[in-house]
């Protein structure tokens, strides 16, 4: 029913009005004297040494890709966990074989040095 949406439209209209008004008010009221230290991304901690849009080393991508693979493979544990009792020893054995294959993959990438941090 369309009239159910009336409050939502009211809210949208209210946001459209209030947002510029508050921003403008803040701009008029606040003291405005920027300095170099203030304009830095973080006011405390280590000073940034480079542009944030610079390139990352490809290592980040490789580790991220590997993470995604291992993370998603664990999804198969979920249906097994739901039916754990019913599947019994057979399910446990099959799952151990599955995990063994994942471990082999893990050993392989480890030995290949894909996890070395340069």
């Amino acid at each position: 029913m369309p009239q159910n949406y009336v409050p939502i439209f009211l809210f949208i209209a209210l946001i459209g009005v209030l947002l510029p008004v508050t921003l403008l008010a803040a701009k008029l009221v606040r003291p405005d004297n920027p300095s170099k230290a203030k304009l830095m991304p973080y006011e405390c901690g280590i000073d940034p040494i480079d542009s944030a849009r610079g390139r990352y080393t490809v290592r980040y991508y490789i580790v991220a890709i590997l993470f995604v693979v291992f993370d998603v493979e664990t999804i198969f544990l979920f249906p097994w966990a739901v039916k754990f009792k019913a599947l019994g020893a057979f399910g446990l054995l099959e799952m151990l074989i599955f995990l063994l294959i994942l471990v082999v993959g893990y050993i392989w990438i480890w030995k290949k040095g894909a996890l070395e941090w340069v």
Partner: protein
Amino acid sequence: MAPITTLHYLVVAAALFVLGVVGVLTRRNVVVVLMSIELILNAVNLNLVAFSRIWGLQGQIFSIFVITDAAAEAAVGLGILIAFFRNKETVNVDEVDLLKW
């Protein structure tokens, strides 16, 4: 308002599918093409889960397999892309042009 039926999900899935296909065919960046393919796979997942409402759980189990496959495919694809980038320094589909008819 009418209740949300299975058909609604199927329409959304079909829309995602079309978006994915259009993305693959028109986009120039390989990574975006890859994302469009993932979009199609998500349309498949939505379809499967929606059909599970009618036919039972197996559609949902199927979608788990699709999710893992999508992850494996994306991982291999990005790996291939990194190898390609080292040779060619570009991810633009138009510049994948060493091999021509």
